[in-house]
């Protein structure tokens, strides 16, 4: 099995063999990032494909580190590309809020019974993020989960840091209400 540095070198040299290996190794990771931003599963898959095309076509810009660090550096670089592709997709659809639910087929069920409830909770929390209006969803994902600062977010989505903060505040408020609604609903069903 090739190590990451070998794969990276192969990708820099535009060798399809190594590109395919890299794609197969990281596509699930990429989809999990993109699915937090893009509402529909099929649209998220398309965005991941676009992200990898962009990644491989610009691999000459990747700055290698030591063998030990390359995996981490690459994961961070790929994450940034996937996030940018997701934001571009949402911009192209004019940040319009999506309608219609998310099919249950997209989730992987846990084989372990003990984990099942926990997994369902995590899935439900991700659905709550996805149900935010696109602009709120982007800021929440970037700040809370992906660790960007408001200044960086402002530069990425062409707004001000102040606007980013107020958007995050509104997103949190909506999520709080959604969580409370979900809790009340589950209490009523008992």
């Amino acid at each position, binding site marked *: 099995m090739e190590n990451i540095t070998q794969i990276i070198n192969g990708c820099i040299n*535009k060798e*399809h063999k190594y*590109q*395919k290996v890299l*794609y*197969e190794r990281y*596509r*699930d990771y*990429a*989809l*999990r990032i993109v*699915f*937090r931003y893009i*509402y*529909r599963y*099929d*649209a998220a*898959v398309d965005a*991941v*494909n676009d992200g*990898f*095309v962009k990644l*491989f*076509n610009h691999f*000459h810009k990747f700055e290698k580190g030591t063998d030990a660090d390359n995996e981490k550096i690459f994961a961070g670089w790929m994450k940034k590309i996937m996030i940018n592709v997701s934001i571009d997709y949402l911009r*192209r*659809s*004019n*940040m*319009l*809020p*999506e*309608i*219609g639910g998310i099919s249950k*087929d*997209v*989730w*992987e*069920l*846990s084989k372990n019974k003990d984990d099942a409830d*926990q*997994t369902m*909770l*995590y*899935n439900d*929390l*991700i659905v709550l*993020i996805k149900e935010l*209006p696109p602009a709120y969803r982007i800021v*929440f994902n970037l700040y*809370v*989960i992906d660790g960007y600062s408001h200044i960086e977010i402002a530069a990425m989505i062409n707004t001000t840091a102040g606007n980013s903060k107020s958007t995050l505040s509104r997103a*949190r408020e909506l*999520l*709080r209400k959604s*969580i409370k609604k979900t809790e009340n609903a589950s209490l009523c069903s008992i």
Partner: protein
Amino acid sequence: MQHIENDMDDLFRNASEKYRLKPAEDNWDKIKPQLTEKPGPVTTNTKKTGRLLIIGLLIILSVGGFIKYYHDAAEIALHKPLTKNIDDKTSAAEKKPSEKQKSISKKQNKQSLVTGNEYLKQNKFAISSSYNTKQYGILMVDNNAAKELFTALKNDTAENLLIEKIKTADDKSNQHITEKMLQSKAGIQLKENNSINSSIRKNKLIINEMRQKFYLAIIAGPSYNQVKYQGFEKPGFAAGIKAGYYLNKRIAVEAGFLFSKKNYSSDGKYFSMKHVGASMPQGMEVLSLKGSSSIFEIPVHLKYDLMQKNKSNVFLSAGISSYILTNEKNNYHTMLNGVKQDMTSVYKKSRSYFAASIDASAGYEYKINNYNTIRFQPYIQIPFKGTGVGSMPVMSAGVHFGFTHFTR
């Protein structure tokens, strides 16, 4: 509060790491054809940018030159001094106006050079008034002085004057005007002067002075909206302000800023999926919808006063309105895979539409006093283009009730 937020953030961070998604499909065959063998050439847009810069510079220079030319050409001969004394005896027949002016000024004992405006204020008297205008007369002694005043008043825009005619006393065709003026107070003075100086030739300058040209109006009223003649939903409303300026006695140009709420319903076939399709599940069909929009309207109209009486006015108005749509809420009745379901979506992103509708109206205005009127104005707005996420052509009809104030 902060610790609750931190807990919530940790919860979502945890979820993002541990949630499970079904494995992604292998799409390598779709990706491979799009990969370049070598780094693509970096194209520069330098030439295109350069051309655009040159064109931009030419446009700026042309516009600047244009403005300067008209600024130089449009020097206004304001405040040309005139002699005040109207009892001049000198004949105007033989000498040029400028020489005449000098000879008058030399001969007068009391000389005061006044502007056309000041002369007018001191010497005008009212003849009649109508909805928009008051008619004044000015007694002039001297032909040349009258012409100079006429020129000065024409150029002197501060007085809002419309000079309609200048008559001479010995113009037989206008004898009736002379008689009318003689009935006024100043006319009596003319008679008196006549007895003193019967040889003085007197000119009359009749001026129609418009009342204040600039006005502001507050308007509001209900509106009814429909898409493609499918019937009305519950009424909406429109309210805002308008500013207007009379170009002449009858024609005014108006511009406004209104907030309106439009309620409508439509068959799904008039709802375009072009912008909103990506946000709906694939294969979803919109069967019908009911919606409402919050819009800032910017109308620009021409108003024509059709029938002006002393206290009232019937007018026609036409123009265009541009929209800034700030909020849209649609309740969709949809079908997906044979299953019907109702869905709601709110769109808060602003969209602007230039010249979105063609407007036409007729109205009635009643003058409360010299500066204020009230108006009743039914109107119709015919859509020029579709608006909203579904690009639907929404036609509106309603009434504006308004209060208008003319500036002093």
